[in-house]
């Protein structure tokens, strides 16, 4: 029997397809990480999340 894929592995796989968006979001945070506040990089995060959602849909 093939072992079941854990949800976290599917999640990791989908996220790995969005490295460009992740880099943009990461740079936005790291640029000034001493004053991070809520939704500081909301726009970049939403782009990353959209990419992840699209990738996870494609995987199914």
């Amino acid at each position: 029997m093939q072992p079941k894929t854990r949800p976290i592995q599917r999640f990791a796989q989908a996220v790995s397809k969005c490295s460009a968006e992740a880099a943009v979001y990461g740079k936005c945070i790291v640029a000034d990480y001493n004053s991070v506040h809520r939704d500081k990089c909301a726009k970049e995060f939403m782009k990353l999340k959209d990419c992840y959602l699209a990738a996870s849909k494609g995987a199914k």
Partner: protein
Amino acid sequence: MRPNVCRACRPPQPLKQLFLTPPSPSARRSYAVNAPGGTIFQVFNRRTKWLQKERSAFNVEQSRQADYLKDEVAIRLCERLLDVKRHFPRVLDLGANSCNIARALTRPNPDPDPANPTSPPIADKITELICADSSGSLLYRDADLPFNTSTPMKITRHVLTDEETVPFEAGSFDMVMSSLSLHWINDLPGVLTQINHLLKPDCPFIGAMLGGDTLFELRTSLQLAEQERKGGISPHMSPLADVRDVGGLLQRAGFKMLTVDIDDIIVDYPDTFALMQDLQAMGENNAILGREMGAISRDVLLANEAIYRELHGNEDGSIPATFRIIYMIGWRESDDQAKPLPRGSGEINLKDFLEQK
């Protein structure tokens, strides 16, 4: 009826006698006593930790795969024994996990030396090893493997109710070892004092624990991710002892001739999810009392992956995770031990001596 009950539970001998006969040190039951009035600070949920260890042992294959860190530290810890020219009849491994120390001790040829092509396993120095851990499943996970019988060393497994109260006779061990489990102890001073009492005079305690900057990459990136996504942070990483603290702790527990040193092991992972899965398989997940219950939200995980990679990532696309291991050696006090000379008894000025050269 009440007074009768009270009389019955009084000690049989008169109280005066209790104070007049001082108990011999070896027969005395010793408890680890904190300073009066001091409270033991509860940081970790011991039951959660037990559950996590049991769960990790449930998946035998994955748990064995994630043993690389514990095996490596156990090997490095046991190498320290090569310097002690002595035979140990009875040794305790406190917080044994899956008996990683036993495995390291029975490893063939532990001392590769060109002059001496085959060295005997370190286990030859030990007659009996008692592996004690609170998680029975993890302890007995490898009970059928060949290393259990490959050397004459007798391996006994002992399931503890709790690692914070050690149920062994005082002064009954020739050495106590502990590898990668002391960092989950709430009352570290108390446990170290108990270990000190377990030892015979002039016998060593050799331990390794995670400390200092362990997993600082994950700590910082999770904090940033939670701060940005949720506007606040919750503890995801244990507070850990620092090298400075360990020296003080050992001294406070009554150990002599201390040696404390550190070692950084950096492991590269493909992504943060692999790191977290491995931590889970090691049974090293978060067990802080004040932690947020339930899984970390996907948004935070997503943000964490991006920030970790940006802040700490390697050029080849992998991510590093630092494990800082603190090794400690302390000896139970004994009269025939080498002791420092009294203060002010030096006759040679060190400055003059060094300038002569």
